[in-house]
């Protein structure tokens, strides 16, 4: 481990011992990984450039791909709503706006999860050949989704403008509400990233599960309905609070259930911290299983 600073590599002393990481305390492991992240920010940037810029080099639609998938998603919900198949309840704003904002936020959660979960398998050969901070792989993947999300924000603003909806000033808290979504997405992703290296189909299972979770979260419908079962499921689903919170702050300028939101955020932090620790402990095992 890199016990001392990286500033003067000649004086860096690295010691490798059995169970070294496990013996490092909970707190120190977070500090360690965090400093790894900071130290590898240039590497992260380079990896980001590689995958982001060159990802669009050989494509015709280029950056418009970022819009295309949420738009098509929204189109299908709006179509179902229009034909009367889907009854979302009273959402207070035009349904297309409601579903667009909701699904972009949900999409952020899913893409953060997907990016994190896939980061290690993508970096596979590299991990076996060169010793570098694997955190950079995760960070660059998240940065990719971040960049895509910024583009999507432009789409949201455009749609709000077209429908003549002016968000309240409280919408400036919107970026803050993304933090717990980021934490829980990364948290689940980090665990799955490690497991996927060993058992490859695990990722698919969780992805399918999260796809279903969307219907248990008020993304395409309003959070008020008669059915007791769904009511309970939504009530105990932390994602409800996180997604609804982020959407409501843009559309209505308020978070309705503050207590529920608070506990969900707390849960997101705990999940993130624990899975980070999990990632930290199992990182070495990854190279052996690749």
């Amino acid at each position, binding site marked *: 481990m890199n016990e001392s600073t990286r500033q003067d590599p000649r004086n*860096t002393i690295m010691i490798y*011992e059995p*169970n070294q990481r496990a013996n490092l305390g909970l707190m120190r492991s977070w500090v360690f990984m965090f400093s790894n992240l900071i130290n590898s920010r240039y590497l992260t940037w380079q990896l980001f450039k590689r995958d982001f810029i060159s990802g669009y080099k050989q494509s015709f639609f280029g950056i418009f791909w970022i819009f295309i998938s949420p738009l098509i998603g929204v189109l299908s919900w709006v179509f179902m709503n229009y034909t009367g198949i889907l009854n979302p309840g009273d959402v207070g704003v035009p349904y297309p706006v409601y579903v667009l904002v909701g699904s972009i936020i949900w999409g952020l959660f899913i893409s953060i999860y997907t990016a994190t979960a896939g980061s290690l398998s993508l970096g596979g050969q590299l991990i076996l050949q060169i010793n570098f901070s694997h955190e950079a792989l995760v960070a660059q993947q998240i940065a990719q989704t971040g960049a895509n999300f910024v583009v999507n924000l432009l789409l949201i603003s455009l749609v709000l403008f077209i429908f003549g909806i002016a968000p309240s000033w409280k919408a400036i808290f919107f970026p803050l509400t993304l933090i717990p979504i980021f934490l829980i997405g990364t948290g689940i992703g980090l665990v799955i990233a490690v497991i996927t290296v060993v058992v490859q189909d695990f990722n698919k299972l969780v992805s399918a599960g999260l796809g279903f979770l969307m219907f248990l979260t008020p993304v395409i419908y309003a959070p008020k309905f008669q059915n007791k079962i769904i009511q309970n499921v939504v009530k105990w689903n932390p994602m409800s609070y996180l997604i609804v919170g982020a959407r409501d702050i843009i559309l209505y300028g308020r978070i309705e259930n503050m207590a529920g939101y608070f506990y969900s955020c707390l849960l997101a932090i705990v999940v993130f911290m624990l899975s980070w620790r999990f990632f930290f402990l199992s990182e070495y095992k990854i190279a052996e299983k690749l």
Partner: protein
Amino acid sequence: MNDVVVNVEKVSKKFCKNLRRSMYYGATDVIRSMIGIGTKTNVLRADEFWAADDVSFELKRGKSLGIIGVNGSGKSTLLRLLNGIYQPDKGRIKIQGRVGALISLGAGFHPLMTGRENIFLNASILGMRKDEIKRRFDEIVDFAEIGDFLDAPVKTYSSGMYVRLGFAIAIHAEPDILLVDEVLAVGDANFQKKCFERILDIIKNGTAVIFVSHSMTTVERLCTECILMKHGKQVFWGNTRECVQRYFHEIGQDNLLKSLQPQTVGIGDVVFSDVYVYQEGCDRNNPNIEFGKNIIIEFNYKFSKKESNNNQFRVTIRTFEGRDVQKFLFQESSFIDNVVYPNEKIIAFKKEGTARIKVLQPRLFPQTFRLDVAAAPLDIDVHLGGVANARIFNIIHPSTDKMYLEYGNMGVNEFDYSVEVN
């Protein structure tokens, strides 16, 4: 400052042969450490084996260590342990300074990005900082010899250019400890030579280098000391020559040593006998020759019929592995008119007699060599007679810990020699 930069103490690493078990072990290990009960790593569970077992050595700055052994003997595992990719299950590794790796050249290159962009990408994966990359950028480009292709996507590169660029980046990371895995055979002969020289420079400048190689020639040229691995165990650590000989002994019982038995070649019109290679002024049965001393090569020959005088003797020094180092050609007449090629000498032969070559202070670095002798007519491509591996001899250095690096490149300069035939 402490000169020992790599310190490996009784290091072991285990792996699991069974995929299902290995998944199970991995899962339980991580869960156990999550809840704070560690797993004993120093005992083997079912289906586990030691891929590296109780390895200990140390390496000082400016020294080079070879790791040799047959496939599956644990060389790569050891290298990955040193690189910090695997964590040891027993023992302790202490490394002082920055570790560089010439392991997979061009790792992480993106084919659509230009050479320039890939230099920044690859160098940062190798742990270089932005300012370091900028500072060495020109040097890297120069070294890689990619010229106008710098701003072209690397997918347009030839495979040679690709590895040259990869090598150039890795070698410019200025590590304190450099790990090299079998990559010196990249590019054409010129580039290989350049790589060698660069690595020699790096060692002279104080970097400790660890090589994993199957080429004993490379190991003997570059390494001051050596480790022999067998079934994960370190069976020898010390002098390179001795280590390489042990290696040949291990693998060679059936194939290599057999191939080094003298073998008669040709149609049998010329018979060679009493071939000797020895140090001038010493016993001709002693196959050990001190570095830098004159070498005498001697043999008796007998033509069964000798009608023409257009015969040539061909005496070849080859490395242990069979690469030509130097040919000595001497003949009765010149092949075309009176042209004498630079490495040929004109000398009269009898029907039978003794030939004696005196090689003046050849630049043969310490290693084991073999000698072939043959006779052939100048105009027909047929061996009249000859013996391959007629003699095995060793170049040795009196002080074995002296670096072999100073001996320069073999075979680059023609050797000075004189011939007498009686």
